């Protein structure tokens, strides 16, 4: 393909006053109060996976060297209540909400968590666990602005090296 293709749909923010939405997504960054050990991480993973399956929360949590970022999708009341709880959680601080928007559909099929365990052996088989370089590309159902946001969040958590797989993520990266 030589010339540009013009098929990408425009992703525009919802018009003002438009309130009928069944879903929303929230993205935040935060700092762990103290570095999380493998055991801390596994406990968090277990707890979140259990609760998120129960409340139909999907998304992804990223952790590295005390940097935390999470995107989650749920029904608005569920998402708001969850964010409230997370923001009050004493395990992290400096919770900075980046986006809180209605969405028309989910982009993540489940909830998972990506980090570098000190002892990766036990983790690889864990349901919902991902090594940072295995984090899938931001789904194409996200607007490009949101996909860029997810990439920046990934960059902020993992730094420029491990975020490399995401560089393939945006449409047309292979050109």
């Amino acid at each position, binding site marked *: *393909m*030589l*010339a*540009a*293709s*013009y098929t*990408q*749909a*425009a*992703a*525009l*923010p919802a018009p*003002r006053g438009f309130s009928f939405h069944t879903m929303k997504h929230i993205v935040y*960054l935060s700092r762990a109060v103290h570095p999380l050990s493998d055991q801390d991480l596994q406990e968090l993973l277990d707890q979140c996976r259990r609760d998120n399956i129960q409340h139909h929360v999907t998304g992804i949590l990223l952790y590295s060297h005390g940097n935390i970022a999470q995107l989650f999708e749920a029904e608005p009341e569920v998402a708001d209540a969850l964010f409230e709880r997370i923001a009050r959680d004493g395990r992290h601080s400096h919770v900075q909400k*980046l*986006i809180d*928007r209605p969405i028309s559909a989910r982009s993540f099929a489940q909830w998972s968590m990506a980090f570098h365990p000190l002892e990766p052996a036990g983790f690889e088989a864990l349901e919902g666990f991902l090594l940072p370089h295995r984090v899938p590309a931001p789904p194409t159902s996200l*607007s*490009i*602005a*949101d*996909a*860029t*946001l997810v*990439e*920046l*969040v990934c*960059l*902020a958590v993992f730094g*420029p090296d491990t*975020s490399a797989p*995401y*560089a393939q993520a*945006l*449409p*047309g*990266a292979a050109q």
Partner: protein
Amino acid sequence: MREQHLQDILRRLPAGVATLEGEELRYTFINEAMAGLLGPADATGQPVAVHAGPWPADLLDVMQQVYRTGKAYVAKACQLQTGAAGPIYCDVALEPVLDDNRISGLLLFAVDVTVQEQARQRTHELAIETRRLDARLRVLTETAPQITFTVDGAGRYEYVSPQWYLFTGQPPTCDLNAIWPLLIHPDDRLRVLYQSEAARKAGVGWSYEYRLRRYDGHYRWMLSRALPELHAPGQPVYWHGALTEVHDQRELSEARRRGEAELRFLADSIPELIWTATPEGFVEYYNRFTEDYSGLSTDELGPTGWINLLHPSEQAAAGRQWVHCIATGEPYENVFRMRRHDGRYRWHIIRARQLTDEQGPRWFGACTDVDDQHRLRQVLQTQYDELAQANRDLDTFVYTASHDLKQPVLNLRGLFDELRQGATFADPQAEQMLGMLDEALTQLDLTLQELAATVRDQRGLSAPAEELDVRNVAEEVLLGLRAQVQETEAVVELDAEAAPTLVYGRANLRSVLHNLVSNALKFVHPDRPPHVRVRSYLSAAGQPVLEVRDNGSGMVLPSQPAPVFQPFARQHPHIGGSGVGLYLVQRIITSRGGHLEVSSEVGEGTAFTVYWQERGLNGHA
């Protein structure tokens, strides 16, 4: 019986009681409490000097003196040497016992006052410690750079540290309460007096800033902070506080606040989209013009919302480039179309740079509207391209025309020569005219040759065939046509895999590709953007073929294909162009031994197929 009863009481008394008899002061009676003090061995009958027990030596001396003088004595808080863990203190009363007016012994009476004594000693230690702390506090308050003070409930100064006198230059004899308010800057005075009174009334502390006159007459900003000293449960009686000079910080932060407000005002006044972003690349501020231009608030735009404003076809590349810049710190620059609140896209240059100073890195971005320039340039480029093409076409036309005219001129020359030989003219003037005609014919031939040679050399149309990368040449051609491609939102597909190279004249291949592709971009179907497929492949006979197929409006082909390629035969009179394009393509191809085929369906599209070499010639190869 009564004696016995008395003895019982004495024995059980909680104070120690003993009697000592004779010059040697032998113990005669020891109650239980005293026995506890004297130790386990029974001392009854022993002289006190032998069984000294807990008594210190000087007390033994005093016992002797009391015995001798008959004057009673009380040793207060006398420390006893018992085996117990801590020291034991007793008040020991020594009373002479008289027998017939003669001293016959002593009555020893010991009351344990250890607890009282310990309390007294602690108090003493505390007093010493308090004096030490007091001294330290004084040193501290008088050496710290702050002025410290104590105010009573009525607002009268009880104490002010010497720094106040140093700062204000007032003599130590001045009346503090009268002079202090006068040293406060007139603009701050009322406020300060009101605030401190309000705080005192409410029984709370205060913290405020005001200007105080220095010894040199300059007013300096001071921070006054004080807390009430609470005397439970009543009113606070004193406020203790400190006065810190904050002039420089205040000037600095004032300047910074002013600077920030001015910068923001500036940013909000500039008719450009301006924004700042965190080191992680999240936009945190969009200026007012951005909101006006986009019709969206900062909140609606969000941390990466500027991407939403870009033309959908440009968003992915823009996002990718931004992520790259955040990762590397490289400046960001590109030209994009940005959507205005009314839905119109205008071209903008987006630039962003990272600022790193002591406040940490931040990104500053600006989007400059270059739409007018961009459009003007596009128009100029299109005109330039059209002119260049027309020029090329005309050159080629001149070349081919001169080539085509060669034969008729040759024929004319033949006829003329024959006429000259066969016919005679009576008129002498005729001979002269024949000579002129001959000359004119020669001249015409020469001119045609020169014309052809000039254009040929200039345009490289006669350049020898070379091996060409079809894809390369096609990409060059498309680069020249990019304005049309963008304008029509065309998708051009290029597939030269089956036959990547072609031996041909470079200028000729360019000319053919240019004409066929621009043709496809011209005759666009009104309901869909053009989709042009350029394919280089080998025919069944192994000969190189080029196909240019479009989904445009198509055309009605005459029964004979020839007229399509006639010069000036315009298929679509409503669309501009010199009309010589296809004629030239045809001429180029046939002059190099190939041929051109066309198939078309109205409303569906057109396909041109170029057979570079004649089937008949090399079909068997």
